[in-house]
């Protein structure tokens, strides 16, 4: 094949995906950026949608609320998922591991919207959790779980524990058992060998999962809307409100771009662990 035909075939095979991304991802983003600079109330070009965000504390708080919730969710999910993935990888016998993983993923094939709503009912005053705690004598009276930030966090953690378990499990399985043995031979105790050998080697799995958790959680509308009871607003709720209440696309666009900027910062922080390499 000649060099000319070579490059023609190369372009022919990559251009559909490139075009798709340019037309349906880059162009919408540009349109959004443009729209955000022309506020709905008229008056032409203006940064009002951005200054409003920084000037109005109730808008600004949506972002800090989102960051708080997302960071709590990410941290709690990692802490819960890591030991679980460890048990699946090293305690559960090899031939049961696939089944154990399947079982962990199974509940997530119910619809996401329905699952959030199910959590609302589970956490309600007359719901399963309060009922069980009262029956066990751990509570005298039902406590408020539904319609709180805690409910939002529980709903999120539920999903992301599963996700992080998968990424960390995959990472643990790739470790050669020799690492642990070598560390032990060199006289490192189990804790030191974990901190100095195993943990650094599983950072890629943790960071990929943590980044996915961050991106998906900070942009999610359903979970806080169903479980949070509107006791506080997160960014996606504020964005949807701009469209839902008054069709203000300009303001919604500006808020989306601010959210995107935050995610980009998170990406840059994790970038060294997120490379896609060829086999």
């Amino acid at each position: 094949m000649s060099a000319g035909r070579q490059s023609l075939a190369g372009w022919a095979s990559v251009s559909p995906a490139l075009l798709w991304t340019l037309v349906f991802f880059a162009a919408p983003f540009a349109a959004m950026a443009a729209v955000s600079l022309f506020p709905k109330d008229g008056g032409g070009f203006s940064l009002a949608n951005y200054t409003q965000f920084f000037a109005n504390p109730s808008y600004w708080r949506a972002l800090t609320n989102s960051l708080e919730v997302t960071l709590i969710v990410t941290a709690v999910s990692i802490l819960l998922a890591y030991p679980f993935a460890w048990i699946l990888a090293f305690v559960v016998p090899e031939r049961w591991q696939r089944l154990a993983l399947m079982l962990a993923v199974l509940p997530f094939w119910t619809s996401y919207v329905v699952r959030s709503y199910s959590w609302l009912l589970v956490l309600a005053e007359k719901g399963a959790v309060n009922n069980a705690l009262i029956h066990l004598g751990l509570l005298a009276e039902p406590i408020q779980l539904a319609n709180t930030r805690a409910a939002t966090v529980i709903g999120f953690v539920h999903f992301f524990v599963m996700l992080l378990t998968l990424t960390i499990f995959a990472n643990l399985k790739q470790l050669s058992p020799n690492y642990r043995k070598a560390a032990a031979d060199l006289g490192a105790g189990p804790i030191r060998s974990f901190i100095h050998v195993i943990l650094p080697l599983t950072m890629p799995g943790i960071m990929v999962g943590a980044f996915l958790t961050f991106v998906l959680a900070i942009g999610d509308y359903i979970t806080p809307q169903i479980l949070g009871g509107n006791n506080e607003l997160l960014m996606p709720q504020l964005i949807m409100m701009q469209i839902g209440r008054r069709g203000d696309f300009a303001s919604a666009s500006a808020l989306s771009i601010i959210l995107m900027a935050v995610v980009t910062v998170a990406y840059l922080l994790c970038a060294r662990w997120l490379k896609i390499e060829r086999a």
Partner: protein
Amino acid sequence: MARIVSTLYAAAVYGFIFLPVIVLVLFSFQATLFPIPPFTGPSLRWYEAVLRDARLTDGLLNSMLVAVATSALATLLGFLSAWGFARFHMPASALMRGLITLPLTVSYLIIGMGLLILFNWIGIPKSLITAGIGHVVINLPLCFAIIYSQMGDHQANVERAARDLGAKEWQVLLLVTAPMLWPALFASFFLSMTFSWDEFVIAFLLTRFDTTLPVEIWNLLRAGLNPKTNAVGSLVFGVSIVLAIVFELVAFRKRPA
């Protein structure tokens, strides 16, 4: 001792993971109007209600259609581009690969919002097709990343051998490369299906009357409290389990026991 702690811990995590789903399925058989304790069933009343609700059954079919069509397209585009980047020396290859994977790092809400504004501006009406376009945007980078990561040099050698034997480029791609990458293609397709099937916000923003199941469920949730929501959730669960079993059988039957 460590074994007992491990077992207890794993049991607790499984309990947490299964709790809402067990409650969900149990109260789908509730006989009365509220899906909260005490349990008054079992009754199939709400399943009947779901199957009689044309909006929900249509939503189910629409979701299947969108999931299959967009996953097929995303896998095809991902495969072609992964092959192009792996086999040809492209200028600014890293930059272009970065562009294709970029949507992975963007929240669905922002992707949906951007498309809504673009389509609104050009005057393209909302439909299942516009939602499907959005689903390809979110799934293409995933398919590309999975397939690209599986493109090894040993496959290039086989392709070269096929070419030396006189195969045309499209024949190589279809008859040599694709079969060799079959597990990656299948994984891409299946993962895309999963994401598209359960995606809410893009479909919510970009469809009008004909819409996908998650959006219909959202509408249902806003139209009155009853265990119908539980019933439709349990049905989705059932369908998904069947698909998962099919996936198991197809994807892993070649593995030695």
